[in-house]
C-alpha cells in the first residue's frame, strides 16, 4: 500500500473523519477525551487512531503520563500539491489562454 492509499483509506471512514474534526477544533487531545465524544469502546477508538497514525494524519506525543494526539495535515497537503495543484495549474493556464484569445480579438 502506498502512502496515498493509506491516507485515502483512513479518510474513507466517518468515525475517523470525526476524530480528525475533533482534533482540528482542538489539537492535542488524549484518548480519554476523544473517547468521550464517541459512542464506541475505548478499544474501538484506539483502533481508528492507529489507522490514522499509520497514514500519518495523526501524530501522538507523550507529555508526562499522558499521550496526546495531534492532527498532522502534511499528508493531505502532499496530496493537494501532487494532484489538486496540478489541476489548478491547468485551470489557470486555460484562463490565461482565454484571456489572450479575447485580448487578441480586440
Amino acid at each position: 500500500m502506498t502512502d496515498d492509499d493509506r491516507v485515502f483509506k483512513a479518510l474513507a471512514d466517518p468515525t475517523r473523519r470525526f476524530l480528525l474534526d475533533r482534533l482540528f477544533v482542538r489539537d492535542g487531545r488524549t484518548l480519554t477525551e476523544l473517547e468521550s465524544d464517541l459512542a464506541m469502546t475505548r478499544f474501538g477508538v484506539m483502533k481508528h487512531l492507529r489507522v490514522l497514525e499509520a497514514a500519518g494524519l495523526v501524530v501522538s506525543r507523550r507529555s508526562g503520563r499522558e499521550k496526546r494526539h495531534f492532527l498532522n495535515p502534511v499528508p493531505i497537503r502532499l496530496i493537494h500539491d501532487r494532484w489538486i495543484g496540478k489541476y489548478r495549474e491547468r485551470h489557470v493556464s486555460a484562463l490565461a489562454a482565454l484571456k489572450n484569445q479575447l485580448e487578441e480579438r480586440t
Partner: protein
Amino acid sequence: MTTATEKRVTTQVYRVFIKAKPQAIWDAITRPEWAEKYGYACRVEYDLRPGGAYRSFANEPMKAHGMPDVIIVGEVIEADPPRKLVQTWHPLWDAQASAEPATRLTWEITEEPGGICRLTVTHDVSGAPSLVPMVAGEVPNAGGGWPFVLSDLKTLLETGKALGR
C-alpha cells in the same frame, strides 16, 4: 462558537516522511543555500551552538511588499546534527507578531528502515495567538504554513525540484 473558544492550541505537530539521508534534511533546514530553494524561499543563518543566533531574511518579493530585511529571529537552544534542533522562533513580519513573545520550535530527524527519514516539527506557539492560524497555513494569501513548507521540502529532496519553481 465552539471553534473560536475551543481552539486554544498552543502546540502544533507536523510530520513528513522523506526519502533522504538525515544529513541532507539537516542541511536543507540549516544551510542558507538550501533554505532559499523551498517553502517561502528565504535565506537563513544558523549559528549551530546553544545560544547561537538564527535569522531568516526576507526575499525580494517580500521586501517589495514592505517587509523588513530580517523577518524571523531566534536563538539556538540545542543542536545535535543531524538529529535534533531546538530553537526559539520570533517573527518580525508585522507589528502584531513582533509584539508577541518568541515561540519554540523543535526539529527531529529519525532514520527509518528503507532509506527513509521521519521529520517531525513541533511548534510551541504559546502566547502567540497571531501565529496559530499563520503557521498552520489557514491564513489566505499568506503561503501555506508548515504543511506547505514540509511538503515542498520533501518534494525538493526527493525530486531535486521545489513546487513553485
